[in-house]
């Protein structure tokens, strides 16, 4: 997965330079190669343009217009963006999303790494343990939400029954703005960590045992070996997993539909859920387009950071 891409152009020019054929033929060869490459890319490009790039442009355009009740469109420029800036629910959703991301990403990655190292060892019941860690990932989000809804039910839910054992009173977990977000964060970590573990596990099994052996001969402690050898070698995986986690923190909203509908008083609303509400419940497609543009900008800046900066800083084998 993490292999340096060979830019096709440089490789080709090397061959051309060393080949004995005439320069004119070489040029036409190069031209055909280019055509060939584009033809091979065409099917994917058509799909991407039709279902990704065109919708993005259409969304940006739509955010500059409003649709009147009679179906006609009117150009309003940046009006929708101005009302978005004045919309407290939008800001609430954005801030919530930030906390949701901060809550889920580092913890689920750390947990995934620990679990992967744990199940990578030679021990009995390893397969079973791996399966157990991976199970939450296989469940659909809707099912997960329903299970956790039972944990969080005030009074007789699992969590409150546990609290009861210690003589503590019931707590309205999802009905209280101070706890609802943490409850959702915990659930999402539980759901995601197993998925990320699989990637770490695959990466760990790619590592050469020689390195660890050499380190132990040199007398390095296990922690030192992990810190200076294993973890740096896992960096490409960490990056991949981190990008996925960031995307998921904006993409996962299914559980809100089941558990909180974004409440109480928007305490658990996330940006994508708000977009859904505006677009489909309020049937306001131009404002939904405006919000979508914001989400798009957030996610493309994540992609830019990855391709423009992080990729160059990480050592690929």
């Amino acid at each position, binding site marked *: 997965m993490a292999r340096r891409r060979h830019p096709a152009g440089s490789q080709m020019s090397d061959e051309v330079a060393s080949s004995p054929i005439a320069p004119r033929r070489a040029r036409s060869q190069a031209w055909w190669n280019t055509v060939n490459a584009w033809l091979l890319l065409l099917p994917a490009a058509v799909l991407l343009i039709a279902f990704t790039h065109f919708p993005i442009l259409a969304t940006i355009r739509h955010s500059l217009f409003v649709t009147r*009740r009679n179906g006609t469109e009117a150009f309003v420029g940046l009006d929708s963006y101005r009302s978005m800036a004045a919309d*407290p*629910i939008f800001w609430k959703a954005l801030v919530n999303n930030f906390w949701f991301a901060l809550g889920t990403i580092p913890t689920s990655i750390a947990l995934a790494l620990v679990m992967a190292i744990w199940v990578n060892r030679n021990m009995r019941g390893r397969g079973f343990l791996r399966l157990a860690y991976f199970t939450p990932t296989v469940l659909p989000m809707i099912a997960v939400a329903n299970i956790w809804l039972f944990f969080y*039910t*005030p*009074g*007789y839910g699992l969590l409150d029954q546990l609290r*009861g054992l210690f*003589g*503590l*009173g*019931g707590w*309205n977990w*999802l*009905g*209280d*703005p101070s706890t609802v977000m943490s409850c959702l964060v915990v659930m999402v970590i539980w759901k995601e960590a197993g998925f990320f573990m699989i990637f770490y596990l695959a990466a760990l099994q790619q590592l050469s045992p020689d390195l660890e052996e050499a380190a132990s001969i040199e007398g390095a402690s296990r922690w030192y070996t992990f810190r200076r050898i294993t973890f740096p070698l896992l960096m490409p995986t960490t990056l991949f997993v981190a990008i996925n986690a960031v995307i998921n923190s904006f993409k996962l909203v299914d559980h809100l539909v089941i558990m*909180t*509908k974004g*409440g*109480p*008083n*928007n*305490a658990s609303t996330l940006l994508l859920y708000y977009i859904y*509400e505006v677009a*489909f*419940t*309020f*049937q306001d497609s131009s404002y939904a387009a405006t919000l979508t543009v914001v989400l798009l900008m957030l996610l493309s800046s994540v992609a830019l950071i990855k391709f423009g900066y992080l990729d160059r800083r990480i050592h690929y084998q």
Partner: protein
Amino acid sequence: MFARRTMLIAAALAVLSMAARPAAAVDLTMYYPVAVGGPVTKIIDDMVSRFEKDNPDIKVTAVYAGNYTDTMTKAMTAMKGGQPPQLSVLLSTDVFTLMDENAIVPFDGLVGDKAWFKEFYPAFMANGQIDGKTWSVPFQRSTIVLYWNKDAFKEAGLDPEKAPASWDEMVEMSKKLVKKDGGNTTRWGIEIPSTGYAYWMLQALAIENGQKMMNEPGNEVYLTAPKTVAALEYWVDLSRKHNVAPAGSIDWATLRNDFLEGKTAMMWHTTGNLTAVKDAAKFQFGVAMLPAGERRGSPTGGGNFYIFKSASPDQQKAAVKFIQWMTAPERAAEWSMKTGYVAVSPAAYKTPTMEAYAKGFPQATVARDQLEHAVPELSVHENGRIYKFVGDAVQAAITGAQKPQEALAAAQQQSDRVLRAYK
């Protein structure tokens, strides 16, 4: 050999006749929501299949589409995608939005005899009759009622046959009904749901406090009226001041379980849940009209039938036929008995089966009796948005994030901005 050929021909004819039938029949798709417990989808499917047996030329596909909001979302999205259903059960209050979206046709031009409209309870027709036209016909209609656990009342030393009649009485009784185990409350006095349909509950309290929530043309709401604010304050005080209700928001969908598990001695909920409660309760329970503030009162609630404009004339005619069949007195009575919803016409309560049922289970007619105190449910343009503003305000106040006055002022301001376009 001959026999085989005959059989082949017979088979071919059978196939042909089967293929020919749907072409002659009218196909209808209906969306419907479920907002209460119990096997509602099964009841609907059963009624639909009996209708199809009575009317072989009409085929109805009934699609369960989630709760009321989900169903409205689905219908609107399907319409914009070019494939709306021909009829749907949607909140009676969605009428302004559906008119604004140019989605529905009034029934007036589709029915032979308008006397049909007079068969329904006028309170249920109110939301759907605008500008002299009838845009929808009532089906799963309700009012909010108070359910009380008679066993808990007995245990608390209260008269198990007497529900609270006033706001003060409800607080006093609730205080006696709260049961504690150390610092842990094992039973609350009263729970009023604050998710899903919070605007509905607030409207009930406002009406009881003598305050209307909206105007007739559906372009104004009265959220900051002192009596609306006082209504929300009463609600908030139940948990924050009197400590007889749990803090935080109370979920609409799980409240029925709280009541059935004995976690609360009283609850406010739709009468549509009555049969589900009756079937699952392991204790004696009663159903009463909501207690009175200045007066008694509850908004009506629930869903009406709408017919979509894009349906062909044949489909619209078939849809009317189906709706008339579904709301006929015997079916309305059956529907009411199986769910708890109020049967939509007085005639339904005069059917022998319903009379017998009500005699053995008087709880079944409480919501109907409350109709004389009922007012139309909050219905304005951009209903979805307004409901969210009001719901957010209620939750902000219930969870203590804002004072009722503050929360409602914010909701009023947001509503005014949205409704300005409709004046």
